């Protein structure tokens, strides 16, 4: 089975990003495929590379980049939502691309299931 993941909230402020991460990990462990992970609304903040949480806390951006590298995931930040919020190519983590909402449409068509996390 192929999942598409849509993340609508930013890191730390809401649990959405954590839930999406835990879900994605569990889906991969169960042998499912991830068609793509799309960041929209404040979700675009998840990939800001300058995050420096306290040492005993998770680094949400780094964690996404590592998961993407390990499983060759397609992480996409919405260009319109990102521009509005100051998320541009120079401030994002590796393994992420910035692209349009058409990519979210593609994920909806290609994936067997869409799973959305937000507030």
């Amino acid at each position, binding site marked *: 089975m192929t999942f598409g993941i849509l993340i609508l909230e930013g890191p730390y402020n809401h649990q959405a990003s954590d839930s999406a991460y835990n879900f994605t990990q569990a889906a991969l462990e169960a042998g499912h495929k991830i068609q793509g992970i799309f960041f929209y*609304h404040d979700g675009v903040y998840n990939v800001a590379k300058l995050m420096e949480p306290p040492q005993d806390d998770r680094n949400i951006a780094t964690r996404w980049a590592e998961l993407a590298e390990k499983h060759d995931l397609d992480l996409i930040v919405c260009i*319109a939502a990102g521009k509005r919020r100051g998320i541009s190519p120079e401030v994002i983590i590796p393994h992420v691309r910035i692209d349009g909402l*058409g990519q*979210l*449409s593609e994920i*909806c*068509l*290609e994936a067997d299931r869409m799973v959305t996390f937000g507030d």
Partner: protein
Amino acid sequence: MARDRLTKIMFMCRQAPYGSVYAYEGLEVMLIFAAYEQEYAAAFVDDGVFDLKKDKDSSGIGMKEFSTTYRVMEDYGIEKVYVDGQSMKDRGLTPDDLMIPVEVVDRDTIAKVMAEQDVVLPF
């Protein structure tokens, strides 16, 4: 393609405009998606019915008035637009208060349409 037919996508609009960006950025999603030929429906439920309220003027709060764009939904191929009657009634709204002609239905009708979808996106 995950399906050998058109994908059925429903936009579930439950948030009021201006207080948060969900309605506005949700509308952007609808308009972009419509360029891809699939089967679209939109449901306005709970505070989402306020999205369609006519005579909005956001100049006093310095925010962009975007809701007239709902008028192009139909032209963009979002042919089925459902509005929840109970949500309208709770909020003292009648179809005359809305900027587009809509089908006012009960929650059960919306639920049955929802049950036919491949994807439900919340805004």
